[in-house]
Structure formats: structure tokens, C-alpha cells
């Protein structure tokens, strides 16, 4: 599995904003993402809350390329809680 560990400012516990999500995807994920295998995207433990706007921006290019219902064939999410992990996936599919 291809592991992509994300890094954010350690003083924040939340992520929000469509454009910010898109920028972070471009900066931290795009060049490392492998379309021929599963990718584990790891959000750091200090991130406890993520707004839908961030996830929509973050996943913009991904859902342009693949069927939303097949996201889990390409991506596994790891985050500070199971609740947050489920939310990230469901918001990607929204």
C-alpha cells in the first residue's frame, strides 16, 4: 500500500475551506498518489475535525478521475478517530 502522510500546522485541530483543501491535495498528495495501487492517506492526530468544504476541495481531482462509489478501491483514510475517518470518506462521496 502506498502511504501518504499529511502534515499541517500543529497549532490547529480543524481543517476547513474548499480552496485550502485543494491546495493541500496539490502540495501533499498529487505527486505521490498511485493510481495503480491502494493509497493510505494519513491525517495527523492533532486534526480532530474536518469541514466538508475542505474534503470537497481535497478530493476534487480524485472524484474527477474515478467514480465516487469506487473511492475505497483507491483510498484508505487514517485519522484521529473512526468517526472522522468515516466522515472523510462519506464527504468525498457526497
Amino acid at each position, binding site marked *: 500500500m502506498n502511504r501518504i502522510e499529511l502534515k499541517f500546522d500543529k497549532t490547529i485541530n480543524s481543517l*476547513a*475551506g*474548499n480552496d485550502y483543501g*485543494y491546495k493541500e491535495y496539490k502540495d501533499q498528495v498529487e505527486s505521490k498518489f498511485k493510481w495503480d495501487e491502494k493509497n493510505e492517506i494519513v491525517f495527523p492526530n492533532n486534526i480532530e475535525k474536518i*469541514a*466538508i*468544504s475542505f474534503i470537497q476541495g481535497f478530493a476534487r481531482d480524485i472524484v474527477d478521475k474515478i467514480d465516487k462509489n469506487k473511492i475505497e478501491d483507491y483510498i484508505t483514510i487514517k485519522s484521529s478517530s473512526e468517526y472522522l475517518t468515516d466522515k472523510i470518506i462519506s464527504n468525498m462521496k*457526497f
Partner: protein
Amino acid sequence: MLYLKISWVWVLKMQDVDKIFENIEATCHINSGNFDKHKIRIKDKRFGYKSIFKIIEHLKWIINNKLFNSTIKIVIDSEVIADDASLIIFETIIYNIIKKYNLNISYIFNINNKILGYELFRLSNLYKFNDRFIDRQEFIEKYEQRLDINKNRFRKITYNNKENLPTNYLSITMSEFSTFLSAFNLQKEYLDDLIEVISEIIGNAIEHSNGDCIIDVKVLNHKKKDHKFVSITSISIGDIFIGSEIKEFINNCDKSCYSSNNKIVINAYNNQKALFSSDYDIDSFAMVSAYQKYVTTRINPGGTGGSGLTTLIQTLIEKSENNHCYSLSGNNIVFFNKPFLSLTKDGLIGFNELNDYMNNIPSLDAVRKIKYKFNCTIYNLMFVVKEMIE
């Protein structure tokens, strides 16, 4: 418990604040022939937008007639305060009058101190100068304070700078709200949704308006045991309204640069336009359209449109025991009330009995006009929620 007290002075764009006086018709509301002393008395049962407009009408009349040596007293004899947005708009009016016009003004709120609205008033910046001489400098500094946090209140002014959008600016704001609201014993899932809805409202305000945004959150004890009253208000002063960009899209002959998802707007517009009236026109339609899934004015599509916010508000309403939520933009108000608050499987919301956006106009109980095209975009969300039982 140690409460954080932060002061950070921020200078609002003055011309933006003065915009709330635009589009309001100057009208004299006093009968007396003595134009040195003006007493504006508000007798509306609820102190709300109707009262606000009456006050601005008379103040604008004073300004237009250059009666700058007048003494003005505003007497609020209302029984209740409609919501926190009314108080913040009133505060903005006083701020503008003393800062830009340097008029001698005072106010008195004769409201019932046993009701919840009084608590909103008590926590507002207005309380200190109620029925007292207004210290001009202190009032202005308090209004312009960028961040003001105490036990029950979080108030922040977010500067409308589009350059902030691709940065962690919103994330920092969301983290601040998270810290503030975590002090209350609210259920975690509800708390998360509250924090998210606040950040989404601010994000929308920065992205789709041209004014700075005041966000004010108050959490109070409710008379019902183990319940809290949560009030969230955001106010952006400016003349770009919710749906303004969608109206441009409808009127733009060249639609090639827009998302193909927006086709539903054109289809719905063609189906609804024959039903337009003075109560529901293209501006109302455009505002309603902004809450549909995938509808976006982004050239590069991929956003959730307004449905992400609608879904969040819907979730909060479903989890609360009582609520009153609306957005006001220009001369339109959209109420987020049951039974009209439900997205179809396609992510559309009609705000009508049939929940049909494509073919039917909304219910007048959900989408209404107000008297003036008010240069503001306001979200006012109020919830009564049960506390977490440990």
C-alpha cells in the same frame, strides 16, 4: 475555570459599514416641530428588521437634512428581541452614526429582563451603554475588536481577503470555535456539526460577498433543565448577495465557462419564471438556487455548491429540540424550517410542500421578501439542544 480574554483591534472598511444605509428610504418618523431633539420610539412587539428599518429611515432623514447638531434618542419599547442579528445590526447602526457622522445619539432598551432575548442583549456590546452616555471611543473600539471571547460569547471579525481562501485561515478560525464550544457540555456529534456550520458560513461569506464578516456565537443556559440555547449569527455588509453570481450566470449569454452541473438552474428557471411575482422574483430564485447540490459559480467545478451547508443546517435542526434558522441577503429571506428543509436524493431542495425545485416555486412560509434591498448577508441560527449526560 480560567476564561480567556483577548483584545485585538481591527479596523473595518468604513465604506462597507455605511452601505447598510444605502437603499433605505429617508423618512421622518417624529411629529414634533423641534428638530434639535429626535426621539425614535419603537413599539413593535418584536424588535426585528421592521424596527431596524424604521430607525435607519429616520437617521438617514437626519443625515440627508444635515441636522448634525441634533440629539437623538432611540427608545425600544418592544417586549422581545427577535434574534441576535437584530442586536448586531443595531450595534452597527450606532457604530456608523457615531464614527462616520459623529452624531449625539443614545438608546434605551425597555425589554422584559426575564426572557432569553434579554440575555442576548446583556451579552452584547450594547448593554454597557444602555440608557447612558455613549463613550464614543470605547464603543468604536469594542465594535472593531477583531476577537472577543468570554465565558458565553465568541465574536470575531473576519477580514474579507480572497487571498486567505487557499490558506489555513479558515482552519484556524474553526479551531478557535472548537476550543470555545468544547467548554460546553454538548454532545460530541452536535458540537462537531455546530463548529463545521460556523466555518462553512464564514467560508461562504468570504468567497461570495465583498464585505468583512462579523461572526457572533452565544451559548446560554436554557430554562429547560440540562439544555443549552445556542445562537450563531454572521453578518457581512456588502452589495453582493447570495445568488448574485447565479443571477449573472442566468443572464450571461456565454455559459461555456461555467460547470455543466449548473444546467439544472437554467431548466428550473425556465420552468419557474412564469410564476415570478413581487413576492418571488429572479433574485429570490437565484438565492434558492445557491442551496442546490453541485450548483456552483466556480469556473473549475468540484465544490459542493450550497448543499453542504444546507445539509449541515438540516442535521443541526433535526438534532435540536427547538430552532429558528434563516438566511437574509438583500431583500430575500430563506427560512430553514421543517417541513421544507429536506434534500432529495439528487441533493435538490424546493422549500415547498412537494420539495420540488425544478418545477415549483417555494412556499411563502420559507422564502420571503423584506421591505428593502438591505446591503447585508445574514445567517441567524438558533437552537435549543440537550446537554450531554455524563
